[in-house]
């Protein structure tokens, strides 16, 4: 029986049938449901609701503020888990400095509080409560020493208490927090009002696109010419995602094996173009890079096909740069071990192989000082997304 797969992105919608994939630009004057029905109503009418599968990456991303006892353990571990769950960290607060710390202006989706191994108590006190009075948040989760859980639960309404992310041996324990954050993220994306309307079209659960892509990673080598370790870079309209295998992180953090994902919220080529340009202009390599691509800085202000291609090349460069050793604040991937880079998302519809190869070549030469580059695979027809979607189908119950 044939299926209809739909991916609702921030910039365009992809529709995949047996006959092939088509894509439509989003009309932002309409809500997603109306937009979809206007454009693809006749396609929908050919499928039963059970055979329609939808995932969404529109407006994805939750924000977190992390309050932790030390930089090297509490904050580092929590940041790592948040990154790996696809959550954007808007700020971190070192507990000893909490009285001088500024309050985030925006509404925070989830506050994470962490500190101390189990067995020690009185880590947190009134200073935490005072700080929390001054910020706005939707969720708050405590993952520090179990001794303080009682005190904090008594004073912080709706506090979610999970297992300590710091083990008695000072190692990281990702499990519960990662699951909690991943579920929040998932619930957020499919709980958005306009996404909810899409349940009128499908009888299946709507997933977030990154979740779908992540699911397909274990099967990628069966479908592509991919050698481990690899990364998948998904450059979209509003965000850029990078999925990577754990082999690439040689942190002193000990964690489960598998794949993880980082999201760069404002590194998209359409909706977050300004931030992308800003990031590019602040990069130490940018002028050399533009010269290498035979263009000048002015191209960044242009609205042309050529400018779009350059921006896409820049975003590949910036993403690799962000996870390289030159940017130690972020998760560092051992890019020198990388065998394959897979590109997916809108970028594969714009750039040709040689353009991708050129930019990756520049990155490896300039930043890594390596003259050979990993094998590049371009997922031209969203096969990764299709694998992930098809794989989803029968297992989960609709739980919303």
């Amino acid at each position: 029986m044939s299926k209809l797969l739909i991916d609702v992105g921030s910039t365009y919608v992809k529709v995949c049938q047996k006959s092939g994939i088509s894509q439509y630009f989003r009309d932002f004057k309409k809500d997603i449901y109306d937009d979809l029905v206007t454009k693809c109503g006749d396609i929908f009418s050919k499928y039963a609701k059970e055979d329609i599968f939808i995932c969404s990456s529109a407006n994805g991303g939750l924000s977190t503020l992390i309050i932790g006892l030390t930089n090297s353990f509490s904050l580092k571990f929590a940041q790592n888990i948040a990154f790996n769950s696809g959550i954007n960290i808007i700020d971190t607060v070192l507990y000893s400095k909490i009285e001088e710390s500024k309050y985030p202006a925006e509404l925070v989706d989830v506050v994470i509080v962490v500190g101390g191994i189990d067995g020690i108590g009185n880590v947190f006190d009134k200073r935490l409560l005072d700080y929390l009075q001054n910020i706005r948040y939707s969720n708050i989760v405590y993952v520090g020493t179990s001794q303080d859980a009682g005190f904090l639960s008594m004073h912080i309404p709706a506090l979610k208490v999970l297992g300590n992310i710091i083990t008695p041996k000072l190692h990281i324990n990702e499990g519960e927090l990662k699951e909690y954050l991943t579920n929040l993220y998932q619930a957020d994306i499919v709980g958005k009002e306009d996404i909810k309307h899409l349940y009128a079209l499908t009888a299946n659960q709507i997933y977030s696109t990154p979740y779908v892509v992540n699911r397909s990673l274990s099967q990628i080598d069966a479908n592509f010419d991919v050698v481990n370790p690899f990364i998948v870079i998904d450059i979209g309209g509003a965000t850029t995602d990078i999925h990577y295998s754990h082999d690439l992180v040689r942190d002193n953090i000990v964690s489960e094996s598998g794949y993880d994902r980082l999201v760069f919220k404002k590194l998209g080529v359409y909706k977050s173009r300004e931030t992308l340009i800003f990031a590019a202009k602040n990069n130490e390599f940018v002028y050399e890079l533009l010269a290498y691509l035979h263009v000048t800085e002015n191209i960044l202000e242009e609205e042309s096909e050529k400018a779009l291609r350059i921006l896409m090349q820049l975003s590949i460069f910036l993403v690799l740069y962000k996870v390289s050793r030159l940017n130690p604040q972020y998760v560092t991937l051992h890019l020198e071990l990388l065998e394959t880079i897979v590109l997916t998302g809108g970028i594969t519809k714009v750039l040709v192989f040689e353009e991708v190869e050129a930019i990756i070549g520049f990155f490896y030469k300039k930043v890594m000082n390596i003259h050979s580059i990993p094998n590049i695979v371009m997922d031209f027809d969203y096969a990764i997304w299709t694998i992930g979607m098809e794989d989803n189908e029968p297992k989960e119950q609709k739980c919303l």
Partner: protein
Amino acid sequence: MMKVVTGVVGNDIHVVANRLIDISLQARGFEVFNLGVNTSLEEFIDAAVETDADILLISSLNGEAEGWCRDLQFLRSEYALKDVTFVIGGNLAVGEAKQSDLAPKYKSYGFDLVFHQVDLNTGLDEIERYMSERS
């Protein structure tokens, strides 16, 4: 049970003493948090904070210890550290140097006990004596 955070500081990869220290401390009934080689001073302090440790026992074998010592006072003041006893041992200078010259210097940096090329068991005996006198 007293808690000890230990490890080898800085860009130092001499690991043998570190393993011995871990085992010896456990045998003497301490709870040990071993950060291993290549540990920054900040990580040491942070580990003491997270575990509420009683002792911070730093090893340095390659002779570079003095270089980062100026950060100790600063980092110590960053957190309201409880009464942590700061101990350092190993090869605390490049080339020849005397314990009697080095000890006052390292104490002025904020260490309570200093063991330059002192045998491990002698040093640990001394630490135990110091701790029981303190309490």
